């Protein structure tokens, strides 16, 4: 199982698409590691600097419809090779969401109000998040406070996270 704990990158926009996560020109790579320098390269967002802001981050918190567009699994891979194994959002595009779980990574949906609360209270601070799989809790910590937020994912999703992805599970069961 992967690690699901660390510093948070906040991206305050909906509909961030997979072309923005990893541009098509890098799809000629045939290793995941090669995608590392180009994560979120084409994302235009006020105050966001890909080179500086991605460093040391392990969790991404964003708004609605994250990962829309192309089916490229290069998007979760580009996150993974940068050490980001968790994305928390109001909602996800279907293929991106499934790709995350297929790679044994977390794509967690939270209600719009909760996402708003996280942005209001934790964005711009040195915030960390840990996913407690056993208790279905997101533990959010910043310099001045810490709290737990419930989350819910399906049994299939959780199994894929625990098994490290879909290939291993499918090979055993089909």
């Amino acid at each position, binding site marked *: 199982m992967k690690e699901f704990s660390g510093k948070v990158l906040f991206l305050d926009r909906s509909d961030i698409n997979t072309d*923005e996560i990893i541009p098509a020109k890098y799809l000629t790579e*045939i290793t995941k590691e090669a995608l590392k320098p180009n994560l979120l390269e084409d994302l235009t967002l006020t105050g966001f600097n890909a080179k500086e802001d991605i460093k040391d981050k392990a969790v991404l918190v964003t708004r609605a419809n994250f990962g829309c567009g192309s089916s490229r699994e290069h998007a979760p891979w580009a996150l993974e090779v940068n050490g980001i194994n968790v994305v928390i959002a109001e909602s996800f595009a279907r293929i991106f969401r499934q790709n995350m779980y297929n790679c044994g990574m977390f794509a967690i949906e939270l209600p719009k109000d909760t996402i708003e609360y996280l942005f209001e209270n934790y964005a711009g601070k040195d915030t960390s998040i840990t996913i407690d799989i056993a208790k279905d809790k997101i533990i959010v910590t910043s310099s001045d406070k810490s709290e737990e937020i419930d989350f819910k994912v*399906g049994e*299939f999703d959780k199994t894929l996270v625990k098994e490290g992805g879909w290939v291993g599970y499918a090979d055993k069961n089909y």
Partner: protein
Amino acid sequence: MGKTIAEKIFDTHRVNMPFPDTHVLKLDRVFCHEITTPIAITDLMARGMDRVFDPTKIKAVIDHVTPAKDSKTAEQGKILRDWARRQGIKDFFDIGRNGVCHAIFPEKGFVRPGYTVIMGDSHTCTHGAFGAFAAGVGTTDLEVGILKGVCAFHFPKTIKFVLNGTLKPGVYAKDLILFIIKELTVNGATNMVIEFTGPVVDAMSMESRMTLCNMAIEAGGTCGICYPDMTTVEYLWDFIKDEFSTKEDALKEYSNWISDADASYEKVYEYDVTNLEPMVTFGFKPDQVKTVHEMSGTKIDQVYIGSCTNGRIEDLRIAASILKDKKISDDVRAIVSPATPDVYSMALKEGLIEIFHNAGFCVTNPTCGACLGMSNGVLANGEACASTTNRNFNGRMGKGGTVHLMSPATAAASAIEGKITNSKVYQA
């Protein structure tokens, strides 16, 4: 309670439900291209599982970057080519015989009503035009599909569009789907199947239905679906005539893949589209749609006619009818990319290539080309393209470029004027 097509396909293909709302389906087709498949192949090799579930159900093509532009894309092609040979995949379309996946696979008769289809490409939803359940997936789902012939899905709800009236001259399936995406927004159909029904769809060719279904993903949809009918049978007839004694028999069989009248829908949208105008996108999301009239006069630098959305023969015929005896503006460059070798061949025979050539178009080989800025036709910073493709994302066709999505007719008229233009003055 009746069933939708999606429910019927799920019920007939379900292997099991290992968890609540987790439907593992048997696959009739696994389609592969050289961008998303090589990593699946190398991963299978690394795991010591370099096998395929059924080489006759796997179809592969090199289409995104072809001919290879550099060593990396040559390597991607080689991985796919070597694998197809090694695994006995007969339907592999190499350089020279290749075309855009969602155009060439239907053209070869690989998709039938009631089928389940996956591919590592989001526009796999195109194949729903045949009454199939066809979904784009990532490389891991593709890998398992190749190895085991199964894929897991959460059950998609269905929304239905009933499209009444008739489209005006100069208004096409592309305008209709842009209008629909505007109505739904970019995530209005997430985790859902979109059924396109009604007299407008009944009157459409398979090419137009593919244009509609192709862009279901731009509203987040899992698959676009049209009901199979005699148009579907006619399109497939060369491939199915040994299976059925008459077209009517084929139609009867395929009619099993039509939603029941009392099927339950998440939502039903009903529109009379008789007054629909030609549509075009602005901005960087496919739901940012205005009428061509509203956007008229917007300057463009490049015109691109092609792709899995609008690179089929019908599209080239429409564009050529507008470009006949005309020249493109000195202020633009224009590219046409017939989607498959057969489309190219037909366009040659019909004199369409000559029309494009005389108008000043660059005619490329069949490829995904400029659509995703990976090979040819890349925009420079600050440039705009009038394009018949499906995505206007920021940087999609080149960093700093803008893409305006539109029909082939609007693209052709815009090429002549050098700015976004309604094709009606050029309609024969």
